[in-house]
């Protein structure tokens, strides 16, 4: 089945996409309170030196997210 969305780990460096939803309520609670919202433009900046974490910009705000946190944000294709 074709996925209807992407997540941050799918993005290339400096690529950005619009967030559409979250797939985990607890993480959604955390991320929305920090200003990552459905409709936010999320840009992938770089991976962490030892992997497993992402440096992203959400509407211009710089954030560090773990793999599972980053993967819980569903992005439009």
């Amino acid at each position: 089945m074709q996925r209807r969305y992407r997540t941050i780990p799918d993005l290339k460096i400096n690529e950005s996409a619009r967030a559409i939803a979250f797939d985990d309520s607890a993480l959604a609670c955390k991320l929305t309170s920090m200003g990552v919202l459905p409709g936010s433009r999320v840009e992938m900046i770089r991976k962490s030196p030892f992997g497993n974490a992402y440096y992203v910009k959400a509407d211009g705000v710089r954030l560090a997210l773990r793999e599972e946190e980053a993967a819980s944000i569903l992005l439009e294709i």
Partner: protein
Amino acid sequence: MNGEGGMSPLKIALIGNPNSGKSTVFNQLTGLRQRTGNFPGITVEVKETDYRFPSGKEAILIDFPGTYSLYPTSSDEKVVAAVLANPADPFFPDALVYIADVTHLEKHLLLFTQLLDLHIPILLALNMSDSAAELGIKVNASKLADTFGVPVIPISGRTGQNIMRLTVELEKLLDKKDAAASRSFYNPTESEKQVIQAVQQNLGVENPYRALQIAHHAEWLPFLHPAEKETVAAITSTKNFHSLRAQVDETLERYDRFTPLSQAAVAQPPAFPNTPTDRIDAVLTHRFWGPLVFFAIMLLVFQAIFEWSAYPMDWIEGGFAHLSELVSDKLPAAWYTELITDGILAGLGGILVFVPQIALLFLLIGILEEVGYMSRVVFMFDKTMRRFGMNGRSMVALISGSACAVPAIMSSRTIGNWQERLITVMVTPFISCSARIPVYLVLIGLAVPAVKLGGILSLQSLVFGAMYVLGLLTAFLAGWAMKKWLRRREPSFLAIELPVYRMPLWKNVLLNVWEKVLAFISGAGKIILIVSIALWALSRFGPGDAIRHADQAAQEEARQMGLDTTATDDLVQQRRLEASWAGQAGKWMEPAIRPLGYDWKIGIALLTSFAAREVFTGTLAVLYNMGDAEADINDRSENEAKATLRERMKGEKFSDNGQPVYTLATALSLLVFYALAMQCMSTLAVVRRETGSWKWAFLQFVLMSALAYIAAWLVYVAFS
């Protein structure tokens, strides 16, 4: 902390998101007068201060931990939610100052609108107005004030701009309590309304939004009775109330409402894509350069607490030695003089000697936090450290621990997750600190032959290095084991903001240093002083007349041998220590430590070196009749005193079978013991302070001692 009886004083809390510059504003308002304490029962730090308004009205100003939302995801945020859900809480504020970063206003209003619904008088301070002006951001404050119905003041915590106006408006706000009760921001859904009504009726909660908060948080709110928790649980389950989903929906609904309001009041130029922060981060978080720069910085930190702080530490030690001499010259030779010199002054010196290390470490960490670098460290090392139950910030504690565990453990305060902080606190003392160096030097010189492997690599240096590796490996292994044992009590997140790099504000940095030094002296100092006096008493007094007899016997013996005054003194000192309670205890515990290859004299040194590890060598110097060399022996470098001590150690024989005490096996066993054992009362005192209870300090002591005992025994068996 708050007034007892009668009128309780007015309380005003500063509140806002992390990185809103809230603490800078707090420092602007208060300066040196602030006190640091803990919220009752938990280890979340709170700062407060007595504040006097220009009119003379008095209040207590409280700095709440940085919070994104009343739906908490960390222990800091839980504290804020719990205080605000309970008007009877001693920290419940009469008014709030909301600090928002005006350069990201639409990200900073979520918590603000939640607070509006709690009907506490509130004032909106638009912080970083100076940066906003530089970025070309124009804010219409009066429009925002009309929109939200609260006073709105553009300020700058960094420059102090409008801080006076803030206090004037704040005082006016305190007289207008009624205005706050009339406004509401969020419209609850039908299902939420039902839950709110039921909670209001059953628990007698007045404010609707507080009732909703209680419905969400009842399970862990500390002030609710079990019966009340059951009532709320029954309400939420019969009304089919889905807490997490409702939280997210409410949050999104709030954003939908305030985003257009904030956009209407803020004129923002299009963002520049490549700011200095991005260019700096391209290096500092680079997959190769990032860690390299970090280790270079940590080398500097290590250098500062290991090398630079040695000078002021020498002055302090020298000063106390001088003072001690002065006291023994002026006062008669009696037990109370020794109490002053060897108990009290030694204890006070033992406390103050940590101050340079603590001050320097927190100066450097403070700068790194202030500029915004520490969150990058967390980002880079999150994965590595999480495996071992810790946090990227734990790196700083572990590296500082190689100089001294005391400031290192204090540095773990900045770790937000309680479990990660606890594990960091528990494993940091495994890292070989500088107090172990004299012990290592003496023992390695004794056990390891001074040969060079392949003509270049000294075997002794190799073993010295191996001791550090042993400590580091044990720390990580212990972290991993603790993580397995504790499991997860709260969900762990990385999700942190990486703030824009800024020049450090020296006022913030220095206040932080001052506060940490004070916290150490008042929190751990008392314990260190008491233990120091107790240890002195143990080695000064003995059962019955034992000390007097030992004294006389030693004098007699010295006369017969024709010793000079110094040699006589050394002999008397030795015999008195052997006869003291500590000496007795050493003899009693010999059966317990014999399996490790130790005799009762080593037992005495194990006991006395609980004051600090380097006391081990000093005590042995006394026991092996070279008392005057005590000072030189604790030096961090190889020297004559250490060589002499080693000669004496080689001559030591077990009293029962006449076998030499210090075989290779015993020396290696002692090395391993000192690498792993919790032989430091100051560390325990700091652990007690940082974890808020004796439980963890005691557990750490027992576990580390048990581990050290078993490992030392294994080494002894393997090598003998």
